[in-house]
């Protein structure tokens, strides 16, 4: 395979498999070798699965020989964040105390992908416990700091760190990540890949580590919006990707928010959206105390999930002092605060429902800057749309939209619940008109 092949669209790889240009065994072997060789360079690899994957690839080749076609994901090698359990193999949740954990069940999303014929070639590194309530350092992981393929002195973003860098470096064709409050959008933006946070509840969380039950989502991280649509169809319970979007883009009403004070590279990208013919509307992210809401809700839920882990003292073996302290403090958050936060959250959801009566898509920078240095991971602030969208359970698509100082940046497209096909259509059109998503880091 050529270097470019490792970055090919899913549909191209699948078409070439069907034409017998290469076999699934060859594809999996080449991706697997690359993942095992380059994954550690970015601290992206949690567990190589090449040997198991090759057996699966042989079965896929037998199917292809018999012209038994399962769809566009058949034979495609992928990676999964190590918060998803795979029976018989370690599932570490990125945390030292769970380094030897084996869960005797395979996560539903992995089972669903198996049915599509796609092939899991490795588990990918993550921030410990998906970041828990919060964390203070890039080193908050069993696998070391997530290193960005565009510049290894910078962070890949979290908590789906390995998923972001593995896709960016062409180590997997696509990856699964998870998001509670920015964990798909952030590494997608910092690593220059396309990431989709689905509507809350659209994708099964069974077999995934719980961080905050009412906020966790699992979604794809890929080379394009098109690939995200194909993967989402493979993992969601009731989602049918429509590459031929039924509405005209000129019927869509789009609002840009939170662009004040950001680098002009972001505003230049908004012109591409305007040029698609969409209608421009005015809107603002509804004003709520998002920081306090997210901290209280996630802090309460994650500390309840890990109550025995915290009270037994095992928590002290985590890598990040801030996360340890916040997990302990989370057990003391009063019920009145959690309930107040959840009542305000009802108002957040209501406000967004009202907002989306008149507007189809809200667009903001995914993060307000580039990947920060490893020594200061809080360098690039986020738009309020990240906590707001997560609290309201809304879908979001992060698409690469340019570079600042040779580092990628992204735009987030947010829509009402179950509007994934709208976001994908607009993202696809943006990517038809730009080539930011095709740029590759110097691997």
């Amino acid at each position, binding site marked *: 395979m050529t270097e470019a092949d490792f970055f090919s669209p899913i549909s191209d790889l699948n078409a070439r498999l069907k034409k017998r240009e290469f076999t699934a065994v060859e594809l999996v072997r080449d991706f697997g070798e690359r993942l095992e060789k380059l994954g550690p360079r970015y601290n992206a690899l949690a567990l190589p699965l090449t040997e198991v994957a090759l057996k699966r690839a042989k079965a896929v080749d037998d199917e292809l020989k018999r012209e038994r076609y399962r769809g566009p994901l058949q034979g495609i090698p992928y990676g999964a964040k190590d918060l998803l359990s795979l029976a018989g193999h370690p599932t570490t949740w990125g945390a030292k105390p769970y380094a030897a954990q084996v869960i005797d069940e395979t996560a539903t999303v992995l089972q669903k992908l198996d049915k599509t014929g796609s092939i899991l070639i490795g588990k990918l590194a993550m921030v410990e416990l998906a970041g828990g309530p919060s964390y203070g350092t890039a080193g908050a992981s069993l696998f070391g700091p997530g290193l960005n393929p565009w510049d290894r002195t910078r962070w890949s973003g979290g908590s789906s760190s390995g998923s972001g860098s593995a896709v960016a470096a062409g180590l997997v064709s696509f990856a699964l990540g998870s998001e509670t409050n920015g964990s798909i959008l952030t590494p997608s933006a910092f690593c220059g890949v396309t990431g989709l946070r689905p509507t809350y509840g659209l994708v099964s969380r069974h077999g995934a580590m719980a961080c905050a039950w009412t906020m966790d989502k699992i979604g794809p991280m890929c080379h394009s919006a098109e690939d995200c649509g194909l993967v989402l169809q493979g993992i969601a319970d009731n989602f049918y990707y429509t590459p031929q979007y039924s509405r005209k883009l000129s019927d869509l009403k789009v609002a840009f928010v939170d662009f004040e004070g950001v680098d002009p590279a972001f505003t230049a990208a908004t012109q591409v959206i305007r040029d698609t013919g969409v209608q421009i509307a005015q809107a603002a992210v509804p004003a709520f*105390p998002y920081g*306090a809401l997210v*901290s209280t809700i996630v802090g309460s839920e994650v500390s309840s999930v890990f109550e025995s882990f915290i009270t037994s003292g095992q928590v002290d073996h985590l890598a990040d002092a801030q996360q340890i*302290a916040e997990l302990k*403090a989370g057990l003391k958050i009063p019920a009145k*605060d959690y309930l*107040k936060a959840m009542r305000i959250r*009802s108002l*957040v959801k209501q406000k967004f429902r009202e907002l989306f009566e008149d507007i189809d898509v809200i667009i903001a920078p995914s993060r307000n800057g580039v990947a920060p240095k490893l020594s200061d991971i809080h360098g690039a602030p986020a738009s309020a749309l990240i906590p707001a969208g997560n609290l309201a359970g809304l879908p979001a698509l992060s698409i690469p939209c340019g570079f600042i100082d040779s580092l990628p940046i992204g735009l987030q497209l947010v829509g009402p619940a179950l509007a994934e096909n709208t976001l994908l259509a607009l993202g696809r059109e943006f990517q038809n008109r730009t080539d930011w998503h095709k740029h590759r880091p110097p691997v």
Partner: protein
Amino acid sequence: MKLNRRQLMKAAASASALAARAQQPAPEADPTKAARDANQRNSETLAKFEVPMSTEPAFQFKA
């Protein structure tokens, strides 16, 4: 020195970031105290937010 628009925007962004940092409390050396203090600040922020009595929490129980 003449600055172009891009440099001016960058300078303005850095200035507002610095101002924002200056207004933030200095990082706590003791993470335990910092976590407790953060919870207390969150509690006070939420307490100030008026919610109509009829507003229920954003739960959906399934039978």
